[in-house]
């Protein structure tokens, strides 16, 4: 006869949810207080913990578009982040419980400075900027998003890549317990992305840690994600835990999944259609039911800043 063993934790020993939450608040308040002391003495980005915490010392950028940004609701409820499900609203629904702290980022490969850094330490040398960018998804919809982030070029320079470093590769956290979407092999986990060194040091590329002046919500890739506005949205890898300087072109997730549909470059290009749908136009989110589609622009309208990166490259073959 099978006798169920009683739970070996007494009811009185279990921390009540309220106390647990209080404890978190206590730690959070402490870390913010500690951080602001540091901010007074040192330069650089200080990132408070928690969703929707206001980011301090954010400067404006000349790279921002003057187009009106999408609503906070649009930006945070309509996302592709397969680590939390494949539906557009799945990340919003499923990422709420995700804890993005403590977080560490490993920098490795062909660079003078490598190692594993606490997220807070990783951020310290850099300055926060607001960058209001257009975002064009490969699925032919688009948004305007007011990111807050740090220049990826500054990050690359900081770690001093050697002459062998031709590419920068990124990886997302691989943790099926915390990221329920990873329990199904819709894509190969962890999610991987990559840029050439020239792309990574283009002044438009940023690592975003916030949106609308506040810390990044989990569904948008907390605590840190890539934003490369002249490329399709899937290049913007979320929840980054690893940055590698490589000599070889790194494998990237959507290219692994369907090489004929998604290339390494993934530059926005209205003249090169997806094999199954047209890329000539896009639906701007937030226009409502009766807004027409709008024409998609080469390099998502950022040609002036990035077109030279692809001189002599056949963009039909290197899509």
């Amino acid at each position, binding site marked *: 006869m099978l006798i169920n063993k009683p739970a070996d934790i007494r009811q009185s020993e279990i921390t009540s949810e309220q106390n647990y939450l209080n404890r978190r608040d206590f730690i959070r308040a402490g870390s913010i207080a500690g951080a602001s002391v540091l901010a007074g003495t040192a330069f650089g980005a200080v990132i408070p913990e928690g969703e929707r915490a206001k980011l301090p010392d954010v400067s404006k950028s000349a790279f921002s578009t003057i187009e009106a940004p999408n609503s906070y609701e649009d930006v945070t409820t309509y996302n592709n982040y397969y680590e939390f499900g494949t539906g557009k609203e799945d990340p919003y629904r499923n990422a709420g419980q995700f804890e993005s702290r403590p977080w560490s980022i490993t920098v490795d490969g062909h660079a003078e400075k490598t190692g594993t850094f606490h997220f807070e330490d990783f951020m310290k040398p850099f300055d926060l900027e607001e960058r209001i960018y257009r975002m064009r998804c490969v699925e032919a919809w688009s948004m305007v998003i007011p990111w807050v982030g740090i220049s990826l070029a500054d990050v690359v320079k900081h770690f001093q890549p050697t002459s062998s470093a031709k590419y920068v590769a990124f990886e997302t956290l691989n943790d099926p317990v915390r990221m329920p979407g990873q329990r199904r092999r*819709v894509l190969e986990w962890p999610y991987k992305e990559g840029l050439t060194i020239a792309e990574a040091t283009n002044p438009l590329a940023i690592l975003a840690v916030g949106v609308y002046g506040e810390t990044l919500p989990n569904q948008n890739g907390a605590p840190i994600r890539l934003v490369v506005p002249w490329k399709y949205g899937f290049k913007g890898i979320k929840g980054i835990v690893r940055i590698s300087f490589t000599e070889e072109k790194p494998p990237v997730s959507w290219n692994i*999944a369907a090489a004929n549909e998604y290339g390494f470059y993934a530059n926005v290009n209205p003249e090169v259609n997806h094999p199954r749908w047209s890329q000539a136009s896009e639906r701007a989110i937030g226009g409502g039911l009766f807004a027409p589609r709008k024409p998609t622009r080469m390099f998502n309208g950022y040609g002036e800043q990035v077109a030279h990166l692809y001189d002599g490259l056949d963009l039909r073959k290197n899509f």
Partner: protein
Amino acid sequence: MNTLQKVRFVGKPLVFLLCLLPAALVVGDAFGITGQLSANPVEDILDRFGNWAIRLIMITLSVTPLRQITGWNWLTRFRRMLGLFTFFYALMHFLTWLLLDRGLAVDPAFQWAAIFEDLTERPFITIGFAALLLLTVMAVTSTNGMRRRMRQAWDKLHYSVYAVGVLGVWHYWWQVKKDTSDAWIYAIILAVLLGYRVWTRYRKPVRA
């Protein structure tokens, strides 16, 4: 009330209202009464009409196997209504695409050339459109009078409901970006429904 009266005065009105419910919810959500459309409302409406067209073709194709297994012959009486609702949702799906998504109703720069390109050069759209054409022909010929006039040709024509099932699932499958799990579910249901027909046909000798 006898069975036929129950079907006519209770069953049919009830099924009619049930079939109308998904469309009513789309309208309700569009006006913010029953809920809300997603951040991409056109896509939301397009997907919902399309999904219900697929679900209803499956339900329509379930009528005959269910009748044969249970012996409830009155189920046949719902077949035409279910088929017509399949057509209705497929048509709404198509009109949403044409009028709102491609912009015939809202875009001053609307171009038929772009529509033609989509219909001919995007195979998943071609397939979906073919399914809609077949559904249209079946809907037009679904009246008692047409059935009488067309005799055996009517049966032959309306066998294309199987083709609609296959084209519909194919159309769904081909537009999915990566996660084909829902497409698999529809494909398996369709395989069971069509497999059942093949099985019953070859199991017993055909009677004269």
